[in-house]
């Protein structure tokens, strides 16, 4: 029982933090504990959550992708343009998702087959794809989307916005894939020890490309949610969002070095960030404080446990040297 608890320690910590954050938020603002408000706020974070789940397998494999927000913009602009051109949404969806998966796969090919460092490659594609989004969008933005493209953003299932349900399904799928399929297990292996995996004839390169393609598709899905919620698209959509997405993944207990972390953790961290942000905004906390809180949270949540173990080892060391000194002196 304790072993199970310990292996889920990151997730448990997140749950505790979420509860604390919820209590704090409800103290900060009387509007927090309102189903409507909570649901609207939840809908806002779907876009970021989808990208976080797209990034998750890549980070587990020990790599990174900072171009996802730019891929989202390409998708949102494509969807908007197709809508205005009269293309039915059920045709546009597979086309755009395939395109963004291909954009992701380009990243994957450069990293896996050309052996280039993922941070550098995706730094390049971050700019390149953003430029493509601007080029496609042209001056101004794209508006006047048809109803079938924005239906999802204006519908509810019970009290829950449809986009939130979509997110939960997507998160569930990614989570199950990472836990139960070969892709998932090999991804963890690649992240933990890439050389051993290669020697064990794990198809490392194909899996890497696969992870990047999935991330691209998730960013494309996020772009779809974007046009649904905002009924418009511009080249600068989600510019800078990758920092928040990265925060969500890391906060979820996914090690940036790869090999560990759970989908559940990413879900919980997204929920935690959403709770804190919503609480602060509902209480009209000044923007600067919001920035500070998120930054401190990131450092504290990763550094905190390390600090604790550091203190523990130094205390142990002090005790041990006192013991030894005592024995020697006796």
């Amino acid at each position, binding site marked *: 029982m304790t072993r199970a608890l310990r292996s889920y320690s990151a997730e448990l910590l997140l749950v505790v933090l979420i509860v604390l954050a919820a209590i704090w938020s409800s103290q900060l603002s009387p509007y927090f504990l309102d189903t409507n408000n909570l649901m609207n706020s939840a809908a806002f974070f779907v876009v970021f959550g989808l990208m976080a789940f797209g990034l998750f397998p890549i980070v587990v494999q020990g790599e990174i992708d900072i171009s996802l927000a730019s891929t989202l913009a390409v998708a949102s602009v494509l969807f908007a343009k197709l809508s205005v051109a009269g293309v039915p949404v059920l045709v546009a969806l597979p086309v755009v998702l395939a395109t963004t998966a291909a954009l992701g796969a380009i990243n994957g090919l450069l990293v896996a087959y050309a052996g280039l460092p993922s941070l550098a*490659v995706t730094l390049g594609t971050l700019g390149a794809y953003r430029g493509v989004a*601007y080029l496609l969008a042209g001056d101004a933005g794209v508006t006047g989307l048809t109803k079938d493209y924005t239906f999802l953003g204006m519908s509810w299932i019970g009290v829950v916005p449809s986009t939130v349900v979509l997110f939960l399904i997507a998160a569930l799928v990614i989570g199950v894939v990472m836990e139960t399929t070969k892709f998932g297990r090999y991804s963890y292996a690649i992240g933990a020890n890439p050389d051993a995996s290669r020697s064990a004839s794990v198809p490392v390169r194909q899996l890497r490309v696969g992870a990047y393609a999935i991330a691209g598709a998730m960013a494309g899905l996020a772009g779809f949610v974007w046009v649904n919620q905002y009924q418009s698209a511009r080249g600068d959509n989600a510019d800078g969002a990758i920092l928040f997405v990265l925060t969500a993944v890391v906060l979820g207990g996914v090690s940036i070095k790869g090999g560990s972390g759970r989908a559940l953790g990413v879900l919980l961290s997204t929920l935690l960030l959403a709770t804190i942000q919503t609480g602060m905004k509902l209480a009209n906390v000044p923007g600067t404080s919001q920035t500070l809180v998120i930054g401190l949270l990131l450092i504290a949540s990763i550094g905190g446990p390390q600090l604790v173990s550091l203190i523990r080892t130094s205390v142990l060391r002090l005790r041990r040297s006192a013991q030894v000194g005592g024995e020697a002196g006796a």
Partner: protein
Amino acid sequence: MNSSSLLARLRLSGSGGAALRVRFIGVLAFQLLLVIVFTALAPRFLSWDNAQSILFTAAILAMAAAGQTLVVLTGNLDLSVGSIMGLVAYVVFDVSSQAHWLMAFTVPVAIGLGAVLGLINGVLVAYLKIPSMVATLGTLSVYRGLVSFYANAMEVTSGELPQWMRDLATARWLGVSSYVWIALAVVIVVGLALSQLPWGRKLYALGSNPRAAYYYGLNENGILVGAYVGAGAIAGFVGLLLGAQVGNINSLLAFGIEMQVLAAVVIGGVSIWGGSGSVYGAALGAIVLATINNGLVLVGVQEFYRLLFQGLAIVAAVAVDALVQKRVLTATHRRVILEVAA
């Protein structure tokens, strides 16, 4: 044999040095290619006046890239460089606008403040073992939040800056802008520190093979903290210069510059995995970026293409660099084995 002599054997003499030189040539070739293409498209590109303009716009980025190189060489990142630049510039100039006696000492104060901010980064990464991407992502937000809080949406206007710093931004020494000379000096000083000082060599050793460095008894934490302190100090200094160049400073100064700085470092052939590359390459990477910006305006190309070309340039530079590294690595591998066996 002891650790330092083995280190000396493994360091950049002969084989490793050749690797560096070849990587530098890669960036240089890329820059030459840009010059040729742009001159063909816009003859006005190839003039002393235009070259001066490019060098000036590259100066700030080149210095920031030099500081970042220290950290990247150890295999880490400093994403908070923009926030350090903005925080130091705003605070120092704001305080000096009220306490006029401080105006003569802005430079040492800025360097000191930047060093402190860098120290915090170093402690988080080295002692608390927070992965550098995470730690500096956090301090990016915290430092920016601090300056935002301090500034309270007000500007430090150009008239409130120390006159000597404003004059410095417009000064020309031997016909070349002072900022270009200062950037040159900073890059050379950092470059010399890395190649001549024992600390510098240890930095390379740590980055290229952390495990081996541990066994050779290198003080990993000390070196790492030193790298971050250096990067922070340089960032503070550069932030000050940027502030004087810009004139009116708000809390968003240098926001987002970390992406440009990383791009310059990467284009300049500094390996993101650590252990190889030089500040001269990083500085050249900054010049490459400035050249692209300048060339596109001269040719009259739309803004959107700038993003696209910059992004493609980064990917191309990294690809070239990887190719070069692979070739040289296999060559030096054989030589090192022979050396150690000897």
